[in-house]
Protein backbone atom coordinates (compact mmCIF):
# COMPACT_ATOMS: atom_id res chain seq x y z
CA UNK A 1 0.00 0.00 0.00
CA UNK A 2 1.48 3.33 -0.98
CA UNK A 3 0.68 6.62 0.64
CA UNK A 4 2.22 9.84 -0.65
CA UNK A 5 4.72 11.30 1.76
CA UNK A 6 3.23 14.11 3.78
CA UNK A 7 5.80 16.80 4.47
CA UNK A 8 6.06 18.60 7.79
CA UNK A 9 4.87 15.77 9.97
CA UNK A 10 6.71 14.68 13.10
CA UNK A 11 7.74 11.06 13.35
CA UNK A 12 4.70 10.10 15.40
CA UNK A 13 2.23 12.06 13.28
CA UNK A 14 3.74 10.42 10.28
CA UNK A 15 3.40 6.95 11.74
CA UNK A 16 -0.10 7.62 13.02
CA UNK A 17 -1.20 8.90 9.63
CA UNK A 18 -0.07 5.75 7.95
CA UNK A 19 -1.29 3.46 10.63
CA UNK A 20 -4.70 5.04 10.22
CA UNK A 21 -4.83 3.59 6.75
CA UNK A 22 -4.99 0.17 8.34
CA UNK A 23 -8.15 1.02 10.22
CA UNK A 24 -9.71 2.13 6.96
CA UNK A 25 -8.81 -1.19 5.46
CA UNK A 26 -10.46 -2.93 8.38
CA UNK A 27 -13.65 -1.07 7.55
CA UNK A 28 -13.40 -1.83 3.85
CA UNK A 29 -12.36 -5.48 4.11
CA UNK A 30 -13.88 -6.87 7.28
CA UNK A 31 -12.75 -10.16 8.80
CA UNK A 32 -15.45 -12.85 8.90
CA UNK A 33 -17.39 -12.46 12.13
CA UNK A 34 -15.96 -9.01 12.89
CA UNK A 35 -17.09 -5.64 11.57
CA UNK A 36 -15.93 -2.10 12.24
CA UNK A 37 -17.82 1.13 11.72
CA UNK A 38 -16.02 4.48 12.03
CA UNK A 39 -17.73 7.13 14.12
CA UNK A 40 -19.01 10.09 12.12
CA UNK A 41 -17.82 12.68 14.65
CA UNK A 42 -14.52 11.16 15.72
CA UNK A 43 -12.16 9.47 13.29
CA UNK A 44 -10.36 7.70 16.15
CA UNK A 45 -13.49 6.03 17.42
CA UNK A 46 -14.98 2.83 16.00
CA UNK A 47 -18.06 0.76 16.68
CA UNK A 48 -17.16 -2.94 16.55
CA UNK A 49 -19.36 -6.01 16.29
CA UNK A 50 -18.02 -9.47 17.04
CA UNK A 51 -19.98 -12.67 16.49
CA UNK A 52 -19.83 -15.18 19.34
CA UNK A 53 -17.55 -18.01 18.14
CA UNK A 54 -18.90 -21.46 17.20
CA UNK A 55 -19.03 -24.04 19.97
CA UNK A 56 -18.65 -21.40 22.62
CA UNK A 57 -21.30 -20.36 25.15
CA UNK A 58 -21.42 -17.07 23.22
CA UNK A 59 -22.47 -18.68 19.93
CA UNK A 60 -25.45 -17.00 18.37
CA UNK A 61 -24.76 -13.66 20.02
CA UNK A 62 -23.52 -10.47 18.42
CA UNK A 63 -21.39 -8.45 20.80
CA UNK A 64 -20.95 -4.73 20.42
CA UNK A 65 -17.63 -3.16 21.42
CA UNK A 66 -16.07 0.27 21.20
CA UNK A 67 -12.53 0.83 19.99
CA UNK A 68 -10.64 4.05 20.48
CA UNK A 69 -7.21 4.94 19.09
CA UNK A 70 -5.42 7.16 21.62
CA UNK A 71 -3.21 10.09 20.57
CA UNK A 72 -0.04 8.03 20.84
CA UNK A 73 -1.41 5.08 18.89
CA UNK A 74 0.21 2.90 17.53
CA UNK A 75 2.94 3.27 20.15
CA UNK A 76 0.24 2.91 22.81
CA UNK A 77 -2.39 0.17 22.46
CA UNK A 78 -5.95 0.90 21.28
CA UNK A 79 -8.62 1.01 23.97
CA UNK A 80 -11.21 -1.70 23.52
CA UNK A 81 -14.31 -2.27 25.66
CA UNK A 82 -17.40 -4.49 25.48
CA UNK A 83 -20.67 -2.55 25.34
CA UNK A 84 -22.84 -5.66 25.36
CA UNK A 85 -23.19 -7.35 28.74
CA UNK A 86 -21.22 -10.60 28.78
CA UNK A 87 -20.60 -13.34 31.34
CA UNK A 88 -16.88 -14.03 30.96
CA UNK A 89 -14.07 -14.44 33.52
CA UNK A 90 -11.74 -12.06 31.68
CA UNK A 91 -14.26 -9.29 31.06
CA UNK A 92 -15.58 -7.23 33.94
CA UNK A 93 -18.95 -5.56 34.54
CA UNK A 94 -17.79 -2.41 32.76
CA UNK A 95 -16.80 -4.43 29.69
CA UNK A 96 -13.06 -3.97 30.26
CA UNK A 97 -10.99 -6.79 28.83
CA UNK A 98 -8.05 -8.55 30.43
CA UNK A 99 -5.86 -9.27 27.44
CA UNK A 100 -2.06 -8.96 27.51
CA UNK A 101 -1.69 -7.44 24.06
CA UNK A 102 -3.94 -4.57 25.14
CA UNK A 103 -1.51 -3.87 27.98
CA UNK A 104 2.17 -4.63 28.48
CA UNK A 105 2.44 -7.02 25.55
CA UNK A 106 1.28 -4.41 23.08
CA UNK A 107 3.46 -4.04 20.01
CA UNK A 108 3.09 -1.24 17.46
CA UNK A 109 3.42 -3.92 14.81
CA UNK A 110 0.10 -5.44 15.87
CA UNK A 111 -2.89 -4.67 13.69
CA UNK A 112 -6.36 -3.73 14.80
CA UNK A 113 -7.66 -6.86 13.12
CA UNK A 114 -5.19 -8.97 15.11
CA UNK A 115 -6.40 -7.33 18.29
CA UNK A 116 -10.04 -8.01 17.44
CA UNK A 117 -9.26 -11.59 16.46
CA UNK A 118 -7.56 -12.02 19.82
CA UNK A 119 -10.66 -10.69 21.56
CA UNK A 120 -12.76 -13.17 19.57
CA UNK A 121 -10.37 -15.97 20.52
CA UNK A 122 -10.74 -15.00 24.16
CA UNK A 123 -14.48 -15.72 23.84
CA UNK A 124 -13.64 -19.25 22.65
CA UNK A 125 -11.11 -19.85 25.40
CA UNK A 126 -11.91 -18.12 28.69
CA UNK A 127 -8.99 -18.10 31.10
CA UNK A 128 -10.30 -18.18 34.69
CA UNK A 129 -6.72 -18.32 36.05
CA UNK A 130 -6.09 -14.72 35.00
CA UNK A 131 -9.42 -13.23 35.92
CA UNK A 132 -10.72 -9.71 35.74
CA UNK A 133 -14.16 -10.59 37.04
CA UNK A 134 -13.40 -12.55 40.21
CA UNK A 135 -16.87 -13.90 40.96
CA UNK A 136 -17.30 -15.12 37.39
CA UNK A 137 -13.85 -16.73 37.41
CA UNK A 138 -14.67 -18.42 40.70
CA UNK A 139 -17.77 -20.02 39.28
CA UNK A 140 -15.94 -20.95 36.11
CA UNK A 141 -13.40 -22.84 38.18
CA UNK A 142 -15.70 -24.51 40.72
CA UNK A 143 -18.71 -25.27 38.56
CA UNK A 144 -17.92 -24.92 34.88
CA UNK A 145 -21.22 -26.33 33.52
CA UNK A 146 -23.16 -23.82 35.60
CA UNK A 147 -20.90 -20.99 34.46
CA UNK A 148 -21.36 -21.97 30.82
CA UNK A 149 -25.11 -22.14 31.32
CA UNK A 150 -25.11 -18.62 32.74
CA UNK A 151 -22.95 -17.39 29.86
CA UNK A 152 -25.46 -18.91 27.38
CA UNK A 153 -28.32 -17.37 29.26
CA UNK A 154 -26.68 -13.92 29.21
CA UNK A 155 -25.88 -14.29 25.52
CA UNK A 156 -29.54 -15.02 24.74
CA UNK A 157 -30.70 -12.24 27.01
CA UNK A 158 -28.33 -9.43 26.01
CA UNK A 159 -26.59 -10.33 22.75
CA UNK A 160 -29.37 -11.46 20.44
CA UNK A 161 -32.03 -9.47 18.66
CA UNK A 162 -32.23 -5.75 18.62
Amino acid sequence: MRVPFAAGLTADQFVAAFKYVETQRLVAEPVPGISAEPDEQNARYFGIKIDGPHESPFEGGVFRLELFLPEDYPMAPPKVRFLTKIYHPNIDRLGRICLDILKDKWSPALQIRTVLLSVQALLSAPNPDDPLANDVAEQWKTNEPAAIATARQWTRQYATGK
Partner: protein
Amino acid sequence: MPKDIISTQIQAIEDVNNIFQIPPSTARILLQFFGWDKERLVERYYDGDQDRLFEEAHIINPHKLPRQDSNTEHKEMTCEICYVDYPRKDMTGLPCNHRFCRHCWVSYLQSKIMDEGTGEKITCPAHQCPIVADEVTISHLLQGHPEIQARYEFFVAKAFVQGNKLVKWCPAPGCENAVRVNTVEARPVKCKCGHAWCFGCQQPTHEPVHCPTLKAWLKKCADDSETANWISANTKECPRCKTTIEKNGGCNHITCRSLNCKYEFCWSCLGAWEPHGASWYNCSRFDEKDSMQARDQHSRSRVSLERYLHYYNRYHNHEQSQKFEQQLFAKVDKKMEEFQQRGMSWIEVQFLKKAVEVLCLCRQTLKYTYVFGFYLRKNNQAVIFEDNQKDLEMAVETLSQYLEQDMDSATGSASSSSSSSSSSSSSSSSSAATTAQATSNPTVLADIKQRVLDKSQYCESRRKVLLDHVQDGYEQGVWEFDAAGN
Protein backbone atom coordinates in the same frame (compact mmCIF):
# COMPACT_ATOMS: atom_id res chain seq x y z
CA MET B 1 26.97 11.89 31.99
CA PRO B 2 30.36 11.81 33.69
CA LYS B 3 33.12 10.97 31.26
CA ASP B 4 34.85 8.48 33.53
CA ILE B 5 31.67 6.43 33.84
CA ILE B 6 31.41 6.23 30.09
CA SER B 7 35.04 5.24 29.76
CA THR B 8 34.58 2.63 32.49
CA GLN B 9 31.72 1.12 30.55
CA ILE B 10 33.68 1.22 27.33
CA GLN B 11 36.64 -0.48 29.02
CA ALA B 12 34.47 -3.31 30.36
CA ILE B 13 32.80 -3.71 26.98
CA GLU B 14 36.14 -3.83 25.21
CA ASP B 15 37.43 -6.46 27.61
CA VAL B 16 34.44 -8.70 26.99
CA ASN B 17 34.65 -7.93 23.31
CA ASN B 18 38.26 -9.12 23.24
CA ILE B 19 37.52 -12.32 25.13
CA PHE B 20 34.44 -13.45 23.23
CA GLN B 21 34.88 -11.76 19.86
CA ILE B 22 31.35 -10.43 19.95
CA PRO B 23 30.16 -6.98 18.87
CA PRO B 24 30.44 -4.26 21.55
CA SER B 25 26.70 -3.66 21.47
CA THR B 26 26.10 -7.33 22.35
CA ALA B 27 28.80 -7.21 25.00
CA ARG B 28 27.05 -4.27 26.66
CA ILE B 29 23.72 -6.06 26.87
CA LEU B 30 25.40 -9.16 28.31
CA LEU B 31 27.29 -7.07 30.86
CA GLN B 32 24.15 -5.24 31.90
CA PHE B 33 22.42 -8.59 32.29
CA PHE B 34 25.23 -9.73 34.62
CA GLY B 35 25.25 -6.52 36.67
CA TRP B 36 28.55 -5.54 34.99
CA ASP B 37 30.25 -8.42 36.75
CA LYS B 38 32.72 -9.44 34.07
CA GLU B 39 34.01 -12.47 35.96
CA ARG B 40 30.56 -13.96 36.36
CA LEU B 41 29.77 -13.38 32.70
CA VAL B 42 33.00 -15.04 31.55
CA GLU B 43 32.37 -17.98 33.84
CA ARG B 44 28.83 -18.45 32.58
CA TYR B 45 29.94 -18.02 29.00
CA TYR B 46 32.48 -20.80 29.17
CA ASP B 47 30.86 -23.43 31.28
CA GLY B 48 27.23 -23.11 30.45
CA ASP B 49 24.84 -23.50 27.62
CA GLN B 50 25.66 -20.48 25.48
CA ASP B 51 22.41 -20.54 23.56
CA ARG B 52 20.51 -20.39 26.81
CA LEU B 53 22.71 -17.59 28.07
CA PHE B 54 21.90 -15.49 25.01
CA GLU B 55 18.26 -16.37 25.22
CA GLU B 56 18.05 -15.30 28.86
CA ALA B 57 19.80 -12.03 28.07
CA HIS B 58 17.32 -11.50 25.21
CA ILE B 59 19.85 -11.33 22.44
CA ILE B 60 20.59 -13.37 19.34
CA ASN B 61 23.79 -15.39 19.56
CA PRO B 62 26.09 -13.21 17.46
CA HIS B 63 27.94 -16.28 16.24
CA LYS B 64 24.75 -17.63 14.71
CA LEU B 65 23.49 -14.59 12.84
CA PRO B 66 21.86 -15.34 9.50
CA ARG B 67 23.95 -14.12 6.59
CA GLN B 68 22.62 -11.03 4.88
CA ASP B 69 21.87 -11.60 1.23
CA SER B 70 23.08 -8.50 -0.56
CA ASN B 71 20.80 -9.20 -3.55
CA THR B 72 17.65 -8.70 -1.54
CA GLU B 73 18.84 -5.48 0.08
CA HIS B 74 17.35 -3.34 -2.70
CA LYS B 75 14.04 -5.14 -2.76
CA GLU B 76 11.15 -3.30 -1.18
CA MET B 77 9.54 -4.50 1.99
CA THR B 78 6.60 -3.26 4.02
CA CYS B 79 7.10 -1.73 7.45
CA GLU B 80 4.87 -3.79 9.71
CA ILE B 81 3.97 -0.77 11.78
CA CYS B 82 2.99 1.85 9.22
CA TYR B 83 2.53 -0.42 6.15
CA VAL B 84 4.68 1.76 3.94
CA ASP B 85 7.04 0.06 1.49
CA TYR B 86 10.75 0.89 1.62
CA PRO B 87 13.87 -0.64 0.12
CA ARG B 88 15.11 -3.25 2.58
CA LYS B 89 18.35 -1.36 3.11
CA ASP B 90 16.46 1.68 4.40
CA MET B 91 14.81 -0.29 7.15
CA THR B 92 16.36 -0.85 10.58
CA GLY B 93 16.25 -4.10 12.45
CA LEU B 94 17.89 -5.85 15.36
CA PRO B 95 19.61 -9.20 14.87
CA CYS B 96 16.16 -10.83 15.07
CA ASN B 97 15.68 -9.36 11.60
CA HIS B 98 12.33 -7.69 12.23
CA ARG B 99 12.78 -4.51 10.27
CA PHE B 100 10.87 -1.28 10.58
CA CYS B 101 11.13 2.10 8.96
CA ARG B 102 13.05 4.88 10.60
CA HIS B 103 9.92 6.92 11.36
CA CYS B 104 8.35 4.06 13.22
CA TRP B 105 11.53 3.30 15.11
CA VAL B 106 11.94 6.91 16.25
CA SER B 107 8.32 7.14 17.25
CA TYR B 108 8.63 3.86 19.14
CA LEU B 109 11.84 4.90 20.90
CA GLN B 110 10.34 8.24 21.80
CA SER B 111 7.37 6.56 23.40
CA LYS B 112 9.58 4.09 25.32
CA ILE B 113 12.17 6.64 26.44
CA MET B 114 10.17 9.82 26.96
CA ASP B 115 6.80 8.38 28.03
CA GLU B 116 7.64 5.09 29.70
CA GLY B 117 11.05 6.15 30.98
CA THR B 118 12.94 3.04 29.97
CA GLY B 119 16.37 2.90 28.41
CA GLU B 120 18.32 -0.30 28.75
CA LYS B 121 15.41 -2.70 28.28
CA ILE B 122 13.79 -1.55 25.06
CA THR B 123 12.84 -4.60 23.03
CA CYS B 124 12.19 -5.04 19.32
CA PRO B 125 8.80 -3.50 18.38
CA ALA B 126 7.61 -6.73 16.76
CA HIS B 127 4.88 -8.62 18.59
CA GLN B 128 6.29 -11.09 21.12
CA CYS B 129 9.88 -10.47 20.07
CA PRO B 130 12.04 -10.31 23.24
CA ILE B 131 15.26 -9.16 21.57
CA VAL B 132 16.77 -6.14 23.34
CA ALA B 133 17.70 -3.11 21.28
CA ASP B 134 21.40 -2.37 21.56
CA GLU B 135 22.89 1.02 22.22
CA VAL B 136 24.57 1.37 18.84
CA THR B 137 21.32 0.84 16.96
CA ILE B 138 19.39 3.18 19.22
CA SER B 139 21.98 5.95 19.11
CA HIS B 140 22.09 5.65 15.36
CA LEU B 141 18.32 5.93 15.07
CA LEU B 142 18.20 8.89 17.43
CA GLN B 143 20.58 11.02 15.40
CA GLY B 144 18.87 14.34 14.92
CA HIS B 145 16.82 13.90 18.12
CA PRO B 146 19.21 15.26 20.75
CA GLU B 147 16.54 15.52 23.43
CA ILE B 148 15.56 11.86 23.22
CA GLN B 149 19.19 10.88 22.84
CA ALA B 150 20.19 12.74 26.00
CA ARG B 151 17.37 11.15 27.97
CA TYR B 152 18.32 7.76 26.63
CA GLU B 153 21.95 8.20 27.65
CA PHE B 154 20.81 9.25 31.10
CA PHE B 155 18.80 6.05 31.50
CA VAL B 156 21.63 3.92 30.22
CA ALA B 157 24.11 5.49 32.64
CA LYS B 158 21.63 5.16 35.48
CA ALA B 159 21.11 1.50 34.68
CA PHE B 160 24.85 1.06 34.53
CA VAL B 161 25.39 2.50 38.00
CA GLN B 162 22.40 0.72 39.49
CA GLY B 163 23.32 -2.59 37.92
CA ASN B 164 26.97 -2.31 38.82
CA LYS B 165 28.13 -3.16 42.31
CA LEU B 166 31.49 -1.56 41.62
CA VAL B 167 30.09 1.88 40.83
CA LYS B 168 28.15 4.28 43.02
CA TRP B 169 26.96 7.86 42.67
CA CYS B 170 28.84 10.46 44.70
CA PRO B 171 26.50 11.49 47.54
CA ALA B 172 27.68 15.12 47.61
CA PRO B 173 24.74 17.44 46.91
CA GLY B 174 24.71 18.55 43.29
CA CYS B 175 27.56 16.24 42.28
CA GLU B 176 26.79 14.10 39.25
CA ASN B 177 29.90 11.98 39.34
CA ALA B 178 30.04 8.32 40.09
CA VAL B 179 32.98 6.54 41.63
CA ARG B 180 34.26 3.16 40.59
CA VAL B 181 36.18 0.68 42.70
CA ASN B 182 37.88 -2.59 41.86
CA THR B 183 36.45 -4.73 44.63
CA VAL B 184 33.21 -4.38 46.55
CA GLU B 185 34.09 -3.38 50.10
CA ALA B 186 33.34 -0.61 52.53
CA ARG B 187 36.29 1.70 52.21
CA PRO B 188 36.95 5.41 51.82
CA VAL B 189 36.85 6.78 48.29
CA LYS B 190 37.31 10.27 46.97
CA CYS B 191 35.22 11.83 44.23
CA LYS B 192 36.67 14.25 41.70
CA CYS B 193 34.54 16.95 43.30
CA GLY B 194 36.66 16.55 46.42
CA HIS B 195 34.09 14.82 48.58
CA ALA B 196 35.51 11.87 50.49
CA TRP B 197 33.00 9.17 51.33
CA CYS B 198 32.58 5.56 52.26
CA PHE B 199 31.84 3.21 49.39
CA GLY B 200 30.00 0.89 51.73
CA CYS B 201 27.38 3.22 53.16
CA GLN B 202 27.86 6.47 51.19
CA GLN B 203 28.32 8.44 54.40
CA PRO B 204 31.31 10.77 54.59
CA THR B 205 34.54 8.86 55.25
CA HIS B 206 34.22 7.53 58.77
CA GLU B 207 37.41 5.80 59.87
CA PRO B 208 37.91 4.21 62.35
CA VAL B 209 34.30 3.20 62.89
CA HIS B 210 32.66 0.57 60.67
CA CYS B 211 29.51 1.14 58.63
CA PRO B 212 27.00 -0.81 60.80
CA THR B 213 28.22 0.92 63.98
CA LEU B 214 27.98 4.32 62.33
CA LYS B 215 24.51 3.48 61.14
CA ALA B 216 23.43 2.56 64.68
CA TRP B 217 24.97 5.78 65.99
CA LEU B 218 23.28 8.00 63.43
CA LYS B 219 19.99 6.37 64.22
CA LYS B 220 20.53 6.88 67.92
CA CYS B 221 21.38 10.53 67.35
CA ALA B 222 18.31 11.02 65.20
CA ASP B 223 16.13 9.37 67.84
CA ASP B 224 17.65 10.87 70.96
CA SER B 225 19.57 13.99 70.36
CA GLU B 226 16.92 16.66 70.36
CA THR B 227 15.26 15.41 73.47
CA ALA B 228 18.43 14.29 75.24
CA ASN B 229 20.05 17.71 75.11
CA TRP B 230 16.98 19.43 76.32
CA ILE B 231 16.24 16.90 79.04
CA SER B 232 19.76 17.11 80.36
CA ALA B 233 19.65 20.88 80.55
CA ASN B 234 16.14 21.44 81.78
CA THR B 235 14.88 18.49 83.74
CA LYS B 236 15.68 16.31 86.69
CA GLU B 237 14.08 13.18 88.00
CA CYS B 238 12.07 13.17 91.18
CA PRO B 239 14.37 11.54 93.77
CA ARG B 240 11.49 9.40 95.01
CA CYS B 241 9.51 8.21 91.97
CA LYS B 242 11.88 9.05 89.06
CA THR B 243 9.28 11.00 87.15
CA THR B 244 11.00 13.52 84.93
CA ILE B 245 10.39 17.01 86.22
CA GLU B 246 10.83 20.16 84.24
CA LYS B 247 12.04 23.13 86.19
CA ASN B 248 9.59 25.91 85.93
CA GLY B 249 10.82 29.35 86.90
CA GLY B 250 13.57 30.12 89.37
CA CYS B 251 12.22 28.49 92.50
CA ASN B 252 14.18 25.57 93.92
CA HIS B 253 11.21 24.26 95.84
CA ILE B 254 9.87 21.54 93.57
CA THR B 255 6.77 19.45 94.07
CA CYS B 256 6.68 16.25 92.07
CA ARG B 257 4.03 16.33 89.40
CA SER B 258 3.10 12.71 89.90
CA LEU B 259 -0.20 12.56 91.75
CA ASN B 260 0.84 9.43 93.66
CA CYS B 261 4.07 11.02 94.82
CA LYS B 262 3.81 14.79 95.34
CA TYR B 263 7.25 14.62 96.90
CA GLU B 264 8.62 18.02 97.75
CA PHE B 265 12.32 18.40 97.09
CA CYS B 266 15.03 20.92 96.38
CA TRP B 267 16.06 21.32 92.72
CA SER B 268 19.54 22.29 93.67
CA CYS B 269 20.55 19.59 96.16
CA LEU B 270 17.83 17.03 95.38
CA GLY B 271 17.28 16.65 99.12
CA ALA B 272 13.86 16.72 100.76
CA TRP B 273 12.45 20.20 100.94
CA GLU B 274 11.27 20.04 104.52
CA PRO B 275 14.60 20.67 106.32
CA HIS B 276 15.24 23.65 104.07
CA GLY B 277 12.69 25.28 106.33
CA ALA B 278 12.67 29.00 106.18
CA SER B 279 15.64 29.44 103.88
CA TRP B 280 13.23 30.06 101.03
CA TYR B 281 14.52 29.82 97.48
CA ASN B 282 17.91 29.10 98.86
CA CYS B 283 19.81 25.93 99.37
CA SER B 284 22.63 25.60 101.86
CA ARG B 285 22.31 21.90 102.34
CA PHE B 286 24.27 20.79 99.27
CA ASP B 287 26.72 18.71 101.30
CA GLU B 288 24.33 17.15 103.75
CA LYS B 289 23.98 13.44 103.81
CA ASP B 290 20.46 12.82 102.55
CA SER B 291 20.80 15.22 99.67
CA MET B 292 24.14 13.68 98.67
CA GLN B 293 22.50 10.27 98.61
CA ALA B 294 19.69 11.55 96.48
CA ARG B 295 22.12 13.12 94.07
CA ASP B 296 24.08 9.88 93.91
CA GLN B 297 21.06 7.93 92.94
CA HIS B 298 20.01 10.58 90.56
CA SER B 299 23.34 10.57 88.83
CA ARG B 300 23.35 6.81 88.52
CA SER B 301 20.07 6.86 86.71
CA ARG B 302 21.39 9.63 84.55
CA VAL B 303 24.70 8.06 83.87
CA SER B 304 23.81 6.52 80.55
CA LEU B 305 22.35 9.75 79.27
CA GLU B 306 25.37 11.67 80.51
CA ARG B 307 27.62 9.15 78.83
CA TYR B 308 25.82 9.49 75.56
CA LEU B 309 25.98 13.25 75.81
CA HIS B 310 29.70 13.10 76.56
CA TYR B 311 30.35 11.29 73.28
CA TYR B 312 27.72 13.12 71.37
CA ASN B 313 29.01 16.55 72.34
CA ARG B 314 32.52 15.76 71.22
CA TYR B 315 31.29 14.18 68.02
CA HIS B 316 29.05 17.15 67.39
CA ASN B 317 31.80 19.61 68.21
CA HIS B 318 34.01 18.26 65.44
CA GLU B 319 31.07 18.19 63.12
CA GLN B 320 30.49 21.88 63.83
CA SER B 321 34.15 22.68 63.25
CA GLN B 322 33.93 20.97 59.87
CA LYS B 323 31.34 23.51 58.87
CA PHE B 324 33.95 26.24 59.13
CA GLU B 325 36.42 24.44 56.93
CA GLN B 326 35.57 26.50 53.85
CA GLN B 327 36.15 29.67 55.83
CA LEU B 328 39.48 28.39 57.01
CA PHE B 329 40.53 27.50 53.49
CA ALA B 330 39.63 31.02 52.35
CA LYS B 331 41.59 32.53 55.18
CA VAL B 332 44.64 30.43 54.45
CA ASP B 333 44.38 31.35 50.77
CA LYS B 334 44.82 34.97 51.76
CA LYS B 335 47.76 34.10 53.97
CA MET B 336 49.36 32.26 51.09
CA GLU B 337 49.09 35.31 48.88
CA GLU B 338 50.57 37.41 51.63
CA PHE B 339 53.50 35.04 52.00
CA GLN B 340 54.10 35.15 48.28
CA GLN B 341 54.17 38.93 48.33
CA ARG B 342 56.82 38.58 50.96
CA GLY B 343 59.08 36.56 48.79
CA MET B 344 58.02 32.97 49.12
CA SER B 345 57.35 31.07 45.91
CA TRP B 346 53.97 29.55 45.06
CA ILE B 347 55.26 26.08 45.66
CA GLU B 348 56.78 27.08 48.99
CA VAL B 349 53.48 28.37 50.39
CA GLN B 350 51.53 25.21 49.62
CA PHE B 351 52.39 23.88 53.08
CA LEU B 352 49.61 26.08 54.48
CA LYS B 353 46.89 24.54 52.38
CA LYS B 354 48.25 21.13 53.16
CA ALA B 355 48.12 21.92 56.86
CA VAL B 356 44.44 22.85 56.64
CA GLU B 357 43.78 19.64 54.76
CA VAL B 358 45.50 17.69 57.51
CA LEU B 359 43.50 19.55 60.11
CA CYS B 360 40.20 18.74 58.39
CA LEU B 361 41.14 15.12 57.92
CA CYS B 362 42.14 14.74 61.56
CA ARG B 363 38.92 16.36 62.74
CA GLN B 364 36.94 14.03 60.55
CA THR B 365 38.74 11.06 62.08
CA LEU B 366 38.37 12.40 65.61
CA LYS B 367 34.68 12.90 65.09
CA TYR B 368 34.22 9.21 64.34
CA THR B 369 36.53 8.07 67.14
CA TYR B 370 33.76 9.19 69.48
CA VAL B 371 31.30 6.91 67.74
CA PHE B 372 33.81 4.08 68.02
CA GLY B 373 34.47 4.93 71.67
CA PHE B 374 30.80 5.13 72.55
CA TYR B 375 30.15 1.51 71.63
CA LEU B 376 33.54 0.22 72.77
CA ARG B 377 33.74 -1.99 75.87
CA LYS B 378 36.52 -1.10 78.27
CA ASN B 379 39.62 -3.27 78.09
CA ASN B 380 43.36 -2.60 78.00
CA GLN B 381 43.39 -1.88 74.31
CA ALA B 382 40.44 0.46 74.77
CA VAL B 383 42.53 2.43 77.26
CA ILE B 384 45.31 2.72 74.70
CA PHE B 385 42.76 3.80 72.13
CA GLU B 386 41.53 6.52 74.45
CA ASP B 387 45.10 7.71 75.01
CA ASN B 388 45.65 7.87 71.27
CA GLN B 389 42.41 9.75 70.93
CA LYS B 390 43.48 12.22 73.58
CA ASP B 391 46.87 12.73 71.92
CA LEU B 392 45.32 13.34 68.55
CA GLU B 393 42.76 15.64 70.09
CA MET B 394 45.51 17.74 71.66
CA ALA B 395 47.65 17.77 68.53
CA VAL B 396 44.66 18.89 66.45
CA GLU B 397 43.81 21.57 68.97
CA THR B 398 47.32 22.97 68.75
CA LEU B 399 47.39 22.93 64.98
CA SER B 400 43.97 24.48 64.83
CA GLN B 401 44.95 27.19 67.29
CA TYR B 402 48.02 27.92 65.24
CA LEU B 403 46.22 28.11 61.91
CA GLU B 404 43.18 29.97 63.13
CA GLN B 405 44.66 32.42 65.60
CA ASP B 406 48.39 32.49 66.21
CA MET B 407 49.15 32.84 62.53
CA ASP B 408 47.47 36.25 62.52
CA SER B 409 49.48 37.55 65.40
CA ALA B 410 52.64 35.94 64.11
CA THR B 411 52.49 37.51 60.69
CA GLY B 412 50.46 40.53 61.62
CA SER B 413 47.05 40.99 60.11
CA ALA B 414 47.05 41.57 56.38
CA SER B 415 46.30 45.28 56.70
CA SER B 416 48.80 46.36 59.35
CA SER B 417 51.81 44.30 58.50
CA SER B 418 53.14 45.47 55.19
CA SER B 419 55.08 48.62 56.06
CA SER B 420 57.93 48.70 58.55
CA SER B 421 59.88 45.53 58.99
CA SER B 422 63.55 46.31 59.06
CA SER B 423 64.33 45.14 62.56
CA SER B 424 65.93 41.76 62.47
CA SER B 425 64.85 39.68 65.36
CA SER B 426 66.08 36.55 63.83
CA SER B 427 65.17 33.10 64.95
CA SER B 428 62.34 31.30 66.65
CA SER B 429 60.84 33.89 68.92
CA SER B 430 57.59 32.51 70.15
CA SER B 431 56.41 35.94 71.19
CA ALA B 432 53.74 37.15 68.82
CA ALA B 433 54.71 40.78 69.32
CA THR B 434 58.28 40.36 68.14
CA THR B 435 57.47 38.27 65.10
CA ALA B 436 54.90 40.79 63.96
CA GLN B 437 57.72 43.23 63.45
CA ALA B 438 59.78 40.84 61.46
CA THR B 439 57.64 38.99 59.04
CA SER B 440 59.31 39.97 55.84
CA ASN B 441 62.50 38.55 57.11
CA PRO B 442 62.86 35.31 55.11
CA THR B 443 64.18 33.43 58.11
CA VAL B 444 61.04 34.34 60.06
CA LEU B 445 58.79 33.09 57.28
CA ALA B 446 60.85 29.97 57.09
CA ASP B 447 60.50 29.59 60.81
CA ILE B 448 56.71 29.87 60.65
CA LYS B 449 56.65 27.38 57.85
CA GLN B 450 58.78 24.96 59.83
CA ARG B 451 56.50 25.16 62.82
CA VAL B 452 53.32 24.62 60.77
CA LEU B 453 54.97 21.73 59.01
CA ASP B 454 56.08 20.18 62.29
CA LYS B 455 52.65 20.51 63.78
CA SER B 456 50.76 19.13 60.84
CA GLN B 457 53.20 16.27 60.47
CA TYR B 458 52.76 15.47 64.13
CA CYS B 459 48.96 15.46 63.66
CA GLU B 460 49.26 13.18 60.68
CA SER B 461 51.49 10.78 62.55
CA ARG B 462 49.14 10.72 65.57
CA ARG B 463 46.21 10.05 63.25
CA LYS B 464 48.06 7.21 61.65
CA VAL B 465 49.02 5.73 65.02
CA LEU B 466 45.39 5.82 66.13
CA LEU B 467 43.99 4.34 62.93
CA ASP B 468 46.66 1.63 62.75
CA HIS B 469 46.00 0.67 66.35
CA VAL B 470 42.27 0.40 65.71
CA GLN B 471 42.89 -1.56 62.52
CA ASP B 472 45.21 -4.00 64.32
CA GLY B 473 42.54 -4.38 66.96
CA TYR B 474 39.94 -5.22 64.34
CA GLU B 475 42.25 -7.78 62.78
CA GLN B 476 43.13 -9.41 66.09
CA GLY B 477 39.55 -9.27 67.32
CA VAL B 478 40.33 -7.33 70.50
CA TRP B 479 37.47 -4.87 70.16
CA GLU B 480 34.24 -5.69 71.90
CA PHE B 481 31.23 -3.58 71.21
CA ASP B 482 28.14 -2.97 73.22
CA ALA B 483 25.10 -2.34 71.09
CA ALA B 484 23.51 -0.24 73.81
CA GLY B 485 26.67 1.80 74.27
CA ASN B 486 27.15 1.20 77.99
